[in-house]
């Protein structure tokens, strides 16, 4: 472009090139030495503070700083693998190490019989409390100590078991086995693995069989199969007792759960399992809904269940019933007008461990006692 005779673009030609690598004309030093002595190209001296001030003004400074930070970060990341436990792991106790399929579907190897166990779900809190030696339980979930939701809250509190609030505390406790919920995000599990513990996912369960399977699974993972089996037997005994109380030859009562927010429970929920175990029919499941959908009060009125069930803390039972009746459509249903609104203890109704048997029992009491049949 620049050597073309036609154009006047020679204006853009550099004439300054060639002077870049020459020595300083004043002090005859090489350019490198010049810079080292903090002199400008015109040989004037510049102070370090002034240099700092000028340097911070330019984008080049920022770029260099950025590069430095990047380098430092990369150096720090160099050993990003997780911490391995210092002690050698020896198999101890019958049947360890063992491999199990956890609730999330991954295969988990439990190297040795766990002696320090942390539970992060209410379900495993309850099961462990029932089948495991108390000294092995070093941490439970926050909800475990909530009296509104946990049937064992008082027991845990009086035994001074630690509730866990974050991953740091778990690391501090140095457990060998941690039970987490199946819906926990992967990074939560990775953080826990950083402590060297084995992480076992505990899946939600929708019916009695899977709850019992979970109990056995927990038992297997901690080496307490015998206790787990005993718990299952106790559960079955309670359920059989309930079955015996169901009056013969009557039409199974039609029930559904309903909350003022419109939430209800359909098929594949523990509520459905409880209802069936109590010998009743879950209307919502009958109509084909699964999980925890929301329905309108009009729908309830249309389906006209025999009983409407709601969970609440026992102290708030009256208030809970009143809240349902505040809805005029609900109040107009047959169930409401005949005083057939049942409130069940949330702690057992929402349980996903053996405590559901108690909910079944309470429900059966409410269903069949109110019909005036004597059951004992």
């Amino acid at each position, binding site marked *: 472009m620049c050597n073309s005779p036609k*154009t006047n673009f020679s204006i853009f030609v*550099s*004439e300054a090139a060639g002077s870049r690598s020459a020595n300083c004309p004043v002090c005859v030093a090489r350019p490198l030495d010049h810079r080292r002595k903090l002199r400008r190209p015109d040989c004037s001296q510049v102070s370090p503070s002034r240099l700092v001030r000028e340097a911070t003004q330019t*984008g*080049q400074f920022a770029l260099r700083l950025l590069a430095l930070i990047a380098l430092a970060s990369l150096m720090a990341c160099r050993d990003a693998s997780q911490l391995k436990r210092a002690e050698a792991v020896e198999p101890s106790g019958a049947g360890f190490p063992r491999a199990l399929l956890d609730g999330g579907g991954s295969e988990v190897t439990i190297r040795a019989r766990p002696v320090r166990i942390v539970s992060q779900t209410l379900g495993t809190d309850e099961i462990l409390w029932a089948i495991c030696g108390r000294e092995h339980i070093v941490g439970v979930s926050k909800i475990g100590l909530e009296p509104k939701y946990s049937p064992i809250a008082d027991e845990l509190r009086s035994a001074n078991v630690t509730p866990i609030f974050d991953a740091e505390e778990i690391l501090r406790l140095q457990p060998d086995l941690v039970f987490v919920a199946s819906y926990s995000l992967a990074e939560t599990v990775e953080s826990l693995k950083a402590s060297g513990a084995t992480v076992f996912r505990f899946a939600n369960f929708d019916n009695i069989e899977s709850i019992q399977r979970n109990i056995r699974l927990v038992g297997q993972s901690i080496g307490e199969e015998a206790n787990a089996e005993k718990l299952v037997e106790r559960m079955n005994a309670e359920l059989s007792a309930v079955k015996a109380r169901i009056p013969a030859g009557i039409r199974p009562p039609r029930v559904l759960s309903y909350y003022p927010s419109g939430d209800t429970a359909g098929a594949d929920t523990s509520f459905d399992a409880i209802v069936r175990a109590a010998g009743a029919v879950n209307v919502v499941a009958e109509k084909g809904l699964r999980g925890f959908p929301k329905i309108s009060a009009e729908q309830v009125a249309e389906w006209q269940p025999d009983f409407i069930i709601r969970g609440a803390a026992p102290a708030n039972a009256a208030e809970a019933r009143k809240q349902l009746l505040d809805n005029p459509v609900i109040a107009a249903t047959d169930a409401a007008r005949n005083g057939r609104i049942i409130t069940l203890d949330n702690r057992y109704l929402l349980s996903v461990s053996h405590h559901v048997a108690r909910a079944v029992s309470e429900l059966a009491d409410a269903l069949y006692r109110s019909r005036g049949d004597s059951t004992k």
Partner: protein
Amino acid sequence: MQVNATALTLTVPRRLLMRLELDNAGINIDGRWLLRHVSLELRGGGLLALVGPNGSGKSTLLRLLGGLWKANEGAVTLDGRALKSLPRRGIARGVAYTPQDTRLDFAFTVREVVMMGRHPHLGRFEVEREIDRDAVNEAMRRADVAQLADRLVTELSGGERQRALLARSLATEAPILLLDEPTASLDIAHALDVLSLCRELAEEGKAIALAIHDLNLAARFADRVALLDKGRLIACGGADEVLRVESLNHVFGVSADRLFTGDGKPVFVFHRDVC
């Protein structure tokens, strides 16, 4: 000798005469021809004033000359090369365009604004050099904003801002200057100063085109005048030829009396016809 047209280790550019030319150029936006069949030449050493009523296409013409808008018809060439084919930086080093809008909402100092004019000469990672600072100081001195160098542009009056933008264009050291209404917000003293400066620059060899409303100032300072109306170039030539009472009547719709000052320059006194 190292030759690198895009690296910008530039020393003082030689004041070469450059030529910016429009050849039957036209521009069409949304179906409307803003300019059509305009042929014009801008040569170093001359001051061209663009006059015409509002909407006649003065700003559009300047934008075409500056390569900001592309012509739909005809050619715009810089020293024979089509503007379309030149890199933006190259055009910026040759042609400096000063917009009419003086709004600057951000709190830059005047010096920083004028230093923006050195952008065509600075590479991505280059820091301002001594010659850039000198060019900026010189530009600010000539535009009479040197005493405002460290003030924030948001605090200046409209006229001071306009002069700061003029300084920015001067700092580019481009041989061709395009100015859109450079005297719009200026008081009479400053307006005369700016136009005298433009005259000086023209005499030093730059090519200057400016759009101006005040016909008397145009007549007094410009070598050539281009009269535009509704997107057409009505006349282009010396002030005497173009600024005639009849043509002014036809284009602007006003009548005028032409008088002459002591040094032979025409002065117009305008009035509406009394019916």
